Protein backbone atom coordinates (compact mmCIF):
# COMPACT_ATOMS: atom_id res chain seq x y z
CA UNK A 1 0.00 0.00 0.00
CA UNK A 2 1.26 3.48 -0.84
CA UNK A 3 0.71 6.67 1.14
CA UNK A 4 1.37 10.39 0.80
CA UNK A 5 3.99 12.12 2.94
CA UNK A 6 2.90 15.58 4.10
CA UNK A 7 5.22 18.37 5.34
CA UNK A 8 3.92 21.00 7.76
CA UNK A 9 6.08 24.01 6.78
CA UNK A 10 5.18 25.86 9.97
CA UNK A 11 6.74 23.08 12.03
CA UNK A 12 9.72 22.08 9.83
CA UNK A 13 12.96 23.57 11.13
CA UNK A 14 15.16 22.28 8.33
CA UNK A 15 17.29 19.92 10.40
CA UNK A 16 17.81 17.77 7.32
CA UNK A 17 17.22 14.50 9.18
CA UNK A 18 14.53 13.36 6.71
CA UNK A 19 16.84 13.98 3.74
CA UNK A 20 19.59 12.03 5.48
CA UNK A 21 17.13 9.16 5.90
CA UNK A 22 15.93 9.05 2.29
CA UNK A 23 17.41 11.63 -0.10
CA UNK A 24 15.57 10.16 -3.08
CA UNK A 25 12.19 10.79 -1.50
CA UNK A 26 12.58 14.19 0.14
CA UNK A 27 14.79 17.27 -0.19
CA UNK A 28 15.22 20.71 1.32
CA UNK A 29 13.93 23.66 -0.69
CA UNK A 30 15.54 27.10 -0.93
CA UNK A 31 14.05 28.17 2.38
CA UNK A 32 15.44 25.13 4.20
CA UNK A 33 12.02 23.49 4.34
CA UNK A 34 11.46 19.82 3.52
CA UNK A 35 9.81 19.08 0.16
CA UNK A 36 8.53 15.66 -0.86
CA UNK A 37 9.87 14.39 -4.20
CA UNK A 38 7.81 11.24 -4.65
CA UNK A 39 4.03 11.59 -4.56
CA UNK A 40 3.26 8.04 -3.44
CA UNK A 41 5.53 6.05 -1.15
CA UNK A 42 5.45 2.60 0.34
CA UNK A 43 4.03 2.91 3.84
CA UNK A 44 7.14 1.47 5.55
CA UNK A 45 9.40 3.86 3.71
CA UNK A 46 7.20 6.88 4.48
CA UNK A 47 7.08 5.78 8.10
CA UNK A 48 10.88 5.72 8.38
CA UNK A 49 11.12 9.23 6.95
CA UNK A 50 8.40 10.45 9.34
CA UNK A 51 10.22 8.93 12.30
CA UNK A 52 13.45 10.69 11.33
CA UNK A 53 11.89 14.13 11.82
CA UNK A 54 12.87 15.48 15.25
CA UNK A 55 9.93 17.89 15.43
CA UNK A 56 7.01 15.93 13.99
CA UNK A 57 6.74 18.09 10.88
CA UNK A 58 5.98 15.06 8.70
CA UNK A 59 2.79 13.05 8.61
CA UNK A 60 1.27 10.33 6.49
CA UNK A 61 -1.95 10.61 4.53
CA UNK A 62 -3.56 7.32 3.58
Amino acid at each position, binding site marked *: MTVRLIVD*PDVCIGS*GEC*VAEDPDAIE*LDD*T*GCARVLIAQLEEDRAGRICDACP*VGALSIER
Partner: protein
Amino acid sequence: MQGPVAVVGNGVAGFACASRLADNGVDVTMIGPGLPHDRPPLSKRALAMGRVPLLADEEKLAAKGIRHLDGRVVDADLERHRLTVAPTAASDPVELVPEAIVWATGLNYPLPPVAGIEIAHENATGAGMLELAAQLTEDGRRVVVIGAGLIGTETAATLAARHSVTLIDMLDRPLGRFQPRLSDAAVATLDGLGARFVGGAQITEVVGNGAGHVVRTSTHGDLPCDVVVSAAGFRTSLPATLAPDGRALTIDVDGALGIPGLTDVFACGDVIRFPHPRYGGIAIPHWDNALHSGRQAADGVLGTGEPYARDPYYFSDIGPLRIQQVGLAADAVEWADEDDLIIGRDEAGDITAVLFLNAPARLREARELLAAATRP
Protein backbone atom coordinates in the same frame (compact mmCIF):
# COMPACT_ATOMS: atom_id res chain seq x y z
CA MET B 1 10.25 10.18 39.89
CA GLN B 2 6.71 11.49 39.77
CA GLY B 3 7.66 15.12 40.33
CA PRO B 4 6.85 17.85 40.61
CA VAL B 5 9.68 18.87 38.27
CA ALA B 6 10.35 22.44 37.17
CA VAL B 7 11.92 23.06 33.77
CA VAL B 8 13.32 26.59 33.65
CA GLY B 9 13.28 27.74 30.04
CA ASN B 10 10.81 27.35 27.19
CA GLY B 11 13.02 27.11 24.11
CA VAL B 12 13.91 23.98 22.20
CA ALA B 13 15.77 22.30 25.08
CA GLY B 14 13.25 23.19 27.79
CA PHE B 15 10.29 22.12 25.72
CA ALA B 16 11.95 18.86 24.61
CA CYS B 17 12.71 18.08 28.26
CA ALA B 18 9.24 18.98 29.53
CA SER B 19 7.63 16.93 26.75
CA ARG B 20 9.64 13.84 27.56
CA LEU B 21 8.90 14.18 31.29
CA ALA B 22 5.17 14.63 30.62
CA ASP B 23 5.20 11.63 28.28
CA ASN B 24 6.56 9.63 31.21
CA GLY B 25 3.77 10.71 33.52
CA VAL B 26 5.82 13.23 35.50
CA ASP B 27 4.14 16.31 36.97
CA VAL B 28 6.08 19.00 35.09
CA THR B 29 5.93 22.79 35.09
CA MET B 30 7.74 24.63 32.31
CA ILE B 31 8.72 28.20 33.25
CA GLY B 32 9.40 30.82 30.60
CA PRO B 33 8.03 34.00 29.05
CA GLY B 34 5.33 33.29 26.46
CA LEU B 35 4.55 30.06 24.69
CA PRO B 36 7.51 27.75 23.96
CA HIS B 37 9.21 28.84 20.76
CA ASP B 38 12.24 28.23 18.66
CA ARG B 39 15.13 30.60 19.40
CA PRO B 40 16.78 32.36 17.72
CA PRO B 41 13.76 32.57 15.39
CA LEU B 42 15.88 33.58 12.46
CA SER B 43 14.54 31.15 9.93
CA LYS B 44 13.72 32.73 6.64
CA ARG B 45 10.13 31.64 6.89
CA ALA B 46 9.72 33.06 10.40
CA LEU B 47 11.16 36.44 9.52
CA ALA B 48 9.52 36.58 6.10
CA MET B 49 6.11 35.79 7.59
CA GLY B 50 6.62 37.80 10.77
CA ARG B 51 5.45 34.88 12.85
CA VAL B 52 7.22 33.34 15.84
CA PRO B 53 7.79 29.62 15.28
CA LEU B 54 5.90 28.15 18.23
CA LEU B 55 6.89 24.71 19.48
CA ALA B 56 3.47 24.29 21.05
CA ASP B 57 0.35 26.36 21.72
CA GLU B 58 -1.82 26.27 24.88
CA GLU B 59 -3.90 23.45 23.47
CA LYS B 60 -0.92 21.26 22.68
CA LEU B 61 0.64 21.95 26.10
CA ALA B 62 -2.61 20.96 27.78
CA ALA B 63 -2.89 17.82 25.65
CA LYS B 64 0.65 16.85 26.58
CA GLY B 65 0.03 17.56 30.25
CA ILE B 66 2.71 20.25 30.57
CA ARG B 67 1.88 23.05 32.99
CA HIS B 68 3.16 26.38 31.71
CA LEU B 69 4.11 29.17 34.09
CA ASP B 70 4.42 32.30 31.96
CA GLY B 71 7.19 34.28 33.64
CA ARG B 72 10.84 34.36 34.60
CA VAL B 73 12.78 32.88 37.47
CA VAL B 74 14.10 35.86 39.44
CA ASP B 75 15.59 33.99 42.37
CA ALA B 76 16.88 30.44 42.64
CA ASP B 77 18.15 28.56 45.69
CA LEU B 78 19.23 25.39 43.94
CA GLU B 79 20.39 23.59 47.07
CA ARG B 80 16.93 23.90 48.59
CA HIS B 81 15.15 23.58 45.21
CA ARG B 82 13.41 26.89 45.78
CA LEU B 83 12.48 28.98 42.73
CA THR B 84 10.87 32.41 42.74
CA VAL B 85 9.07 33.26 39.52
CA ALA B 86 7.93 36.71 38.42
CA PRO B 87 4.89 36.11 36.20
CA THR B 88 4.74 37.98 32.89
CA ALA B 89 1.26 39.26 33.79
CA ALA B 90 1.67 41.78 36.60
CA SER B 91 0.95 39.74 39.67
CA ASP B 92 2.71 38.60 42.82
CA PRO B 93 5.79 36.38 42.56
CA VAL B 94 5.15 32.63 42.66
CA GLU B 95 7.29 30.25 44.77
CA LEU B 96 7.95 26.69 43.66
CA VAL B 97 9.76 23.95 45.56
CA PRO B 98 10.02 21.13 42.99
CA GLU B 99 11.58 17.74 43.57
CA ALA B 100 13.90 18.26 40.58
CA ILE B 101 14.95 21.27 38.51
CA VAL B 102 16.15 21.38 34.91
CA TRP B 103 17.90 24.57 33.83
CA ALA B 104 17.43 25.35 30.12
CA THR B 105 17.53 29.09 29.68
CA GLY B 106 19.85 29.21 26.66
CA LEU B 107 21.91 32.25 25.82
CA ASN B 108 21.10 35.94 26.00
CA TYR B 109 21.77 38.22 23.06
CA PRO B 110 22.51 41.64 24.52
CA LEU B 111 23.11 44.78 22.48
CA PRO B 112 26.82 45.63 22.12
CA PRO B 113 28.19 48.53 24.17
CA VAL B 114 27.83 51.22 21.52
CA ALA B 115 26.33 54.66 22.13
CA GLY B 116 22.82 54.96 20.72
CA ILE B 117 22.48 51.21 20.05
CA GLU B 118 19.11 51.15 21.87
CA ILE B 119 17.31 51.84 18.59
CA ALA B 120 18.62 48.56 17.16
CA HIS B 121 16.38 45.52 16.77
CA GLU B 122 17.42 41.91 17.27
CA ASN B 123 16.42 38.68 15.59
CA ALA B 124 17.37 36.34 18.42
CA THR B 125 14.15 36.32 20.45
CA GLY B 126 10.51 35.98 19.48
CA ALA B 127 9.58 39.46 20.66
CA GLY B 128 12.63 40.96 18.96
CA MET B 129 11.89 39.25 15.66
CA LEU B 130 8.29 40.53 15.69
CA GLU B 131 9.40 44.10 16.34
CA LEU B 132 11.94 43.82 13.55
CA ALA B 133 9.42 42.32 11.10
CA ALA B 134 7.04 45.23 11.84
CA GLN B 135 9.72 47.64 10.60
CA LEU B 136 10.14 45.73 7.37
CA THR B 137 6.63 45.50 5.94
CA GLU B 138 7.55 47.83 3.06
CA ASP B 139 10.10 46.62 0.52
CA GLY B 140 13.35 48.42 -0.14
CA ARG B 141 14.25 49.48 3.39
CA ARG B 142 17.91 50.24 4.07
CA VAL B 143 19.01 47.79 6.76
CA VAL B 144 22.34 47.63 8.58
CA VAL B 145 22.98 44.29 10.32
CA ILE B 146 25.71 44.51 12.96
CA GLY B 147 27.64 41.27 13.47
CA ALA B 148 28.45 38.69 10.80
CA GLY B 149 28.31 35.49 12.83
CA LEU B 150 25.69 32.87 12.00
CA ILE B 151 22.70 34.86 13.25
CA GLY B 152 23.73 38.13 11.60
CA THR B 153 24.71 36.53 8.32
CA GLU B 154 21.53 34.45 8.14
CA THR B 155 19.46 37.52 8.94
CA ALA B 156 21.25 39.65 6.35
CA ALA B 157 20.78 37.01 3.66
CA THR B 158 17.08 36.64 4.49
CA LEU B 159 16.43 40.37 4.43
CA ALA B 160 18.44 40.91 1.23
CA ALA B 161 15.62 39.36 -0.79
CA ARG B 162 13.44 42.43 -0.20
CA HIS B 163 15.67 45.11 1.27
CA SER B 164 18.93 46.94 0.75
CA VAL B 165 21.19 45.25 3.30
CA THR B 166 24.61 46.12 4.67
CA LEU B 167 26.26 43.56 6.96
CA ILE B 168 29.01 44.94 9.15
CA ASP B 169 31.59 43.25 11.37
CA MET B 170 34.88 44.00 13.07
CA LEU B 171 36.39 40.95 11.33
CA ASP B 172 37.44 41.13 7.70
CA ARG B 173 35.02 38.50 6.47
CA PRO B 174 31.52 37.23 7.23
CA LEU B 175 31.58 34.05 9.35
CA GLY B 176 35.19 35.06 9.99
CA ARG B 177 35.49 32.76 13.02
CA PHE B 178 34.44 29.70 11.00
CA GLN B 179 36.27 27.39 8.64
CA PRO B 180 37.57 29.53 5.72
CA ARG B 181 35.49 27.62 3.19
CA LEU B 182 32.34 28.67 5.03
CA SER B 183 33.49 32.22 4.98
CA ASP B 184 34.21 32.01 1.23
CA ALA B 185 30.76 30.57 0.60
CA ALA B 186 29.13 33.29 2.72
CA VAL B 187 30.98 35.99 0.77
CA ALA B 188 29.81 34.57 -2.56
CA THR B 189 26.24 34.09 -1.33
CA LEU B 190 25.87 37.59 0.09
CA ASP B 191 27.32 38.96 -3.12
CA GLY B 192 24.81 37.00 -5.18
CA LEU B 193 21.98 38.36 -3.05
CA GLY B 194 23.17 41.93 -3.48
CA ALA B 195 23.97 42.37 0.21
CA ARG B 196 26.96 44.58 0.95
CA PHE B 197 29.55 43.42 3.48
CA VAL B 198 31.63 45.95 5.41
CA GLY B 199 34.50 44.21 7.18
CA GLY B 200 37.18 45.37 9.59
CA ALA B 201 34.76 47.99 10.85
CA GLN B 202 34.76 49.86 14.15
CA ILE B 203 31.38 51.30 15.08
CA THR B 204 31.58 54.46 17.15
CA GLU B 205 27.90 55.25 17.63
CA VAL B 206 24.40 54.80 16.28
CA VAL B 207 22.37 57.96 15.72
CA GLY B 208 18.61 57.91 15.27
CA ASN B 209 16.51 60.72 13.88
CA GLY B 210 13.11 61.16 12.22
CA ALA B 211 14.39 60.70 8.68
CA GLY B 212 16.38 57.55 9.41
CA HIS B 213 19.37 56.31 11.34
CA VAL B 214 23.11 56.48 10.89
CA VAL B 215 25.60 53.83 11.97
CA ARG B 216 28.83 55.77 12.45
CA THR B 217 32.18 54.04 12.03
CA SER B 218 35.76 55.22 12.47
CA THR B 219 36.83 53.02 9.57
CA HIS B 220 34.14 53.29 6.87
CA GLY B 221 32.43 56.61 7.55
CA ASP B 222 28.67 56.93 8.07
CA LEU B 223 26.22 54.21 7.04
CA PRO B 224 22.76 55.77 6.69
CA CYS B 225 19.85 53.36 7.09
CA ASP B 226 16.21 52.94 8.10
CA VAL B 227 16.59 49.91 10.35
CA VAL B 228 19.49 48.66 12.49
CA VAL B 229 19.68 44.99 13.49
CA SER B 230 22.10 43.92 16.22
CA ALA B 231 23.50 40.38 16.06
CA ALA B 232 26.74 41.00 17.89
CA GLY B 233 27.58 38.36 20.40
CA PHE B 234 25.89 36.53 23.23
CA ARG B 235 26.11 36.35 26.98
CA THR B 236 25.22 33.86 29.68
CA SER B 237 21.67 33.52 30.95
CA LEU B 238 22.83 31.62 34.03
CA PRO B 239 21.99 33.05 37.45
CA ALA B 240 24.79 34.09 39.79
CA THR B 241 24.49 30.80 41.67
CA LEU B 242 25.49 28.89 38.52
CA ALA B 243 27.83 31.43 36.91
CA PRO B 244 29.36 33.26 39.85
CA ASP B 245 31.55 35.58 37.78
CA GLY B 246 28.65 36.38 35.45
CA ARG B 247 30.83 35.59 32.44
CA ALA B 248 30.96 31.84 32.01
CA LEU B 249 28.53 31.04 29.20
CA THR B 250 27.99 27.48 30.31
CA ILE B 251 27.87 25.21 33.33
CA ASP B 252 29.74 21.92 33.48
CA VAL B 253 27.43 18.92 33.76
CA ASP B 254 28.01 15.18 34.12
CA GLY B 255 27.02 12.52 31.59
CA ALA B 256 23.45 12.44 32.92
CA LEU B 257 23.41 16.25 32.52
CA GLY B 258 23.29 16.69 36.29
CA ILE B 259 25.04 19.66 37.86
CA PRO B 260 27.82 18.34 40.13
CA GLY B 261 27.43 19.29 43.78
CA LEU B 262 23.66 19.67 43.55
CA THR B 263 21.05 16.97 44.00
CA ASP B 264 18.45 16.49 41.28
CA VAL B 265 19.40 19.68 39.45
CA PHE B 266 20.07 19.23 35.74
CA ALA B 267 20.80 21.46 32.76
CA CYS B 268 20.49 21.15 28.99
CA GLY B 269 20.76 23.08 25.75
CA ASP B 270 23.00 26.08 25.16
CA VAL B 271 23.87 26.47 28.85
CA ILE B 272 25.76 23.18 29.22
CA ARG B 273 29.32 22.03 28.73
CA PHE B 274 29.08 18.25 28.71
CA PRO B 275 31.73 15.51 28.78
CA HIS B 276 31.73 14.14 25.23
CA PRO B 277 33.57 10.79 25.13
CA ARG B 278 35.83 11.93 22.31
CA TYR B 279 36.01 15.72 22.52
CA GLY B 280 35.96 16.17 26.29
CA GLY B 281 34.04 19.11 27.75
CA ILE B 282 32.22 20.81 24.88
CA ALA B 283 29.38 23.30 24.48
CA ILE B 284 27.30 23.13 21.30
CA PRO B 285 24.93 26.10 21.21
CA HIS B 286 22.83 24.83 18.34
CA TRP B 287 19.42 23.37 17.67
CA ASP B 288 20.34 19.68 17.49
CA ASN B 289 22.11 19.71 20.85
CA ALA B 290 19.23 21.63 22.43
CA LEU B 291 16.74 19.01 21.34
CA HIS B 292 18.77 15.95 22.23
CA SER B 293 20.20 17.24 25.50
CA GLY B 294 16.69 18.35 26.46
CA ARG B 295 15.43 14.81 26.05
CA GLN B 296 18.49 13.48 27.82
CA ALA B 297 17.99 15.77 30.82
CA ALA B 298 14.51 14.29 31.16
CA ASP B 299 16.12 10.84 31.20
CA GLY B 300 18.52 12.15 33.84
CA VAL B 301 15.59 13.22 36.01
CA LEU B 302 13.98 9.83 35.47
CA GLY B 303 17.24 8.06 36.26
CA THR B 304 17.30 6.27 32.90
CA GLY B 305 19.36 6.47 29.73
CA GLU B 306 22.98 6.26 28.71
CA PRO B 307 25.45 9.13 29.34
CA TYR B 308 24.93 11.98 26.88
CA ALA B 309 27.32 11.54 23.93
CA ARG B 310 25.64 13.27 20.99
CA ASP B 311 28.11 14.10 18.22
CA PRO B 312 28.01 17.82 17.44
CA TYR B 313 25.82 18.79 14.49
CA TYR B 314 24.65 22.15 13.25
CA PHE B 315 22.96 23.48 10.17
CA SER B 316 22.42 26.97 8.85
CA ASP B 317 20.69 28.55 5.88
CA ILE B 318 22.42 31.65 4.57
CA GLY B 319 19.86 32.52 1.92
CA PRO B 320 20.15 29.73 -0.65
CA LEU B 321 23.39 28.44 0.93
CA ARG B 322 22.85 25.44 3.17
CA ILE B 323 25.64 24.74 5.64
CA GLN B 324 25.85 21.52 7.64
CA GLN B 325 28.62 20.28 9.85
CA VAL B 326 29.13 17.29 12.09
CA GLY B 327 31.96 17.00 14.57
CA LEU B 328 34.20 19.63 16.06
CA ALA B 329 35.99 21.98 13.67
CA ALA B 330 38.13 23.45 16.46
CA ASP B 331 40.09 20.19 16.70
CA ALA B 332 40.94 20.10 12.98
CA VAL B 333 44.53 20.86 11.98
CA GLU B 334 44.07 20.14 8.29
CA TRP B 335 41.16 20.14 5.87
CA ALA B 336 40.76 18.26 2.60
CA ASP B 337 38.05 18.10 -0.06
CA GLU B 338 36.94 14.55 -0.55
CA ASP B 339 34.09 13.93 -2.94
CA ASP B 340 32.34 17.22 -2.08
CA LEU B 341 32.72 16.71 1.65
CA ILE B 342 35.13 19.04 3.41
CA ILE B 343 36.88 16.84 5.92
CA GLY B 344 38.82 18.08 8.90
CA ARG B 345 41.40 15.85 10.57
CA ASP B 346 42.96 16.21 13.99
CA GLU B 347 46.62 15.88 14.92
CA ALA B 348 46.37 12.10 14.95
CA GLY B 349 45.00 12.17 11.39
CA ASP B 350 41.50 11.11 12.47
CA ILE B 351 38.38 12.74 11.05
CA THR B 352 37.15 15.29 13.57
CA ALA B 353 34.69 17.31 11.50
CA VAL B 354 32.82 16.95 8.23
CA LEU B 355 31.48 20.09 6.59
CA PHE B 356 29.24 20.09 3.54
CA LEU B 357 27.57 22.83 1.57
CA ASN B 358 24.30 22.51 -0.36
CA ALA B 359 24.39 18.76 0.03
CA PRO B 360 21.75 17.81 2.63
CA ALA B 361 21.62 14.25 1.33
CA ARG B 362 25.15 13.69 2.67
CA LEU B 363 24.28 14.06 6.36
CA ARG B 364 24.06 10.36 7.12
CA GLU B 365 27.32 9.63 5.32
CA ALA B 366 29.04 12.50 7.14
CA ARG B 367 27.86 11.15 10.49
CA GLU B 368 29.07 7.68 9.63
CA LEU B 369 32.52 8.97 8.68
CA LEU B 370 32.76 10.82 11.97
CA ALA B 371 31.42 7.93 14.03
CA ALA B 372 33.93 5.55 12.45
CA ALA B 373 36.76 7.84 13.57
CA THR B 374 35.19 8.47 16.99
CA ARG B 375 34.27 4.91 17.92
CA PRO B 376 36.55 2.60 15.96
